[in-house]
């Protein structure tokens, strides 16, 4: 009886230990490993042998396997980081070449480093989030949301610096809604869909409420630009909704 209780406890702990495997490995073999451990425990229980030493050995042996598999996964992560770093470098060529061609485009070296870090961080965020799910709509949704978020943040900073109207930083609150929403949703498709709709609504509300302080012509262009961002956030939300429904099916 005591052994049965101990066996159940060890099986629960073992199931928790298996969570440390990389997701792909866990999904493929986790159930089989838990079942095998269960069978081994039962064999020990039937033979009336103590479980502690056996469980300790299996836990250490499995832990070594977890380290091995995670190191292999880190190698894949390294490849992803290299790809993103090269992609960010390619994107950096655009402002680098433009600064040579366009008159008055005088970025300091620090600005280029800052922009490179932004490109790299955005790319890595996409790579890490998008590989959580296989659904194409989830991946495209993440891509659209990050692109729109990056472009909104960028254009807001540039316009604020150029116009000297700090109240335009209010537009960034849409991004704050996105970050908080994504954390609360734990990157699940359904929660992300709601987050993106909330971002679109927040941005639309700010566009309507906040006086642009710009000449009518400029104000119209800004309204169109923000309308595009609202449409992109909405489209991203619809893609996440599609991914959520596809998962349910």
């Amino acid at each position, binding site marked *: 009886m005591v052994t049965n209780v101990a066996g159940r406890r060890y099986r629960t702990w073992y199931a928790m230990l298996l969570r440390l495997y990389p997701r792909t*490995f866990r999904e493929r*073999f986790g159930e*089989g*490993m838990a079942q*095998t451990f269960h*069978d*081994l425990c039962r064999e020990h229980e039937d033979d009336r042998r103590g479980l502690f030493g056996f469980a300790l*050995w299996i836990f250490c042996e499995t832990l070594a*396997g977890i380290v091995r598999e995670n190191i292999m996964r880190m190698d894949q992560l390294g490849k992803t980081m290299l790809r993103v770093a090269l992609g960010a470098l390619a994107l950096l060529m655009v402002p680098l070449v433009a600064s040579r061609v366009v008159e008055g485009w005088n970025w300091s070296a620090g600005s280029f480093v800052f922009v490179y870090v932004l490109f790299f961080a955005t790319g890595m965020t996409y790579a890490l989030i998008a590989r959580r799910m296989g659904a194409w709509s989830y991946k495209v949704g993440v891509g659209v949301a990050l692109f729109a978020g990056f472009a909104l943040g960028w254009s807001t900073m540039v316009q604020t610096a150029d116009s000297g109207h700090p109240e335009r930083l209010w537009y960034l609150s849409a991004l704050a809604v996105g970050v908080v929403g994504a954390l609360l949703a734990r990157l699940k498709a359904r929660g992300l869909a709601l987050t993106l709709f909330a971002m679109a609504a927040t941005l639309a509300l700010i566009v309507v409420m906040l006086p642009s302080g710009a000449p009518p012509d400029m104000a119209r262009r800004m309204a169109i630009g923000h309308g595009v961002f609202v449409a992109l956030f909405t489209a991203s939300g619809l893609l996440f909704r599609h991914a959520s429904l596809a998962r349910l099916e």
Partner: protein
Amino acid sequence: MANKDTAQTPLTPAVLHILLALSTGERHGYGIMKQVEADSQGKVKMGPGTLYGSMRRMMEAGLIRESDSRVDPEMGDERRIYYELTGAGRTALEAELKRYRSVVAVAEGRLAHGH
């Protein structure tokens, strides 16, 4: 399709034992462990970490594959995932055994001649 490297280089002891355990038919994880233990007269005890880590690499190399998920009538009513050798796995096992035989022949020849 077997990975070229897997087919040409010596197999690790764990891979060889798993191939050997599956050579007589499909087995689930626990069944493979028990067969490995029996094949090695209890000298090789493989834990789940080694077993499933090796099986992951073997599946990627095309040596084994999942065959079925069903209840083992001798072991209660839980469903178990069964694994089986592929054609490439059988070829790799035969190649490895041939390599072992040639090593043993060389070793026995040397020992017989005392050098």
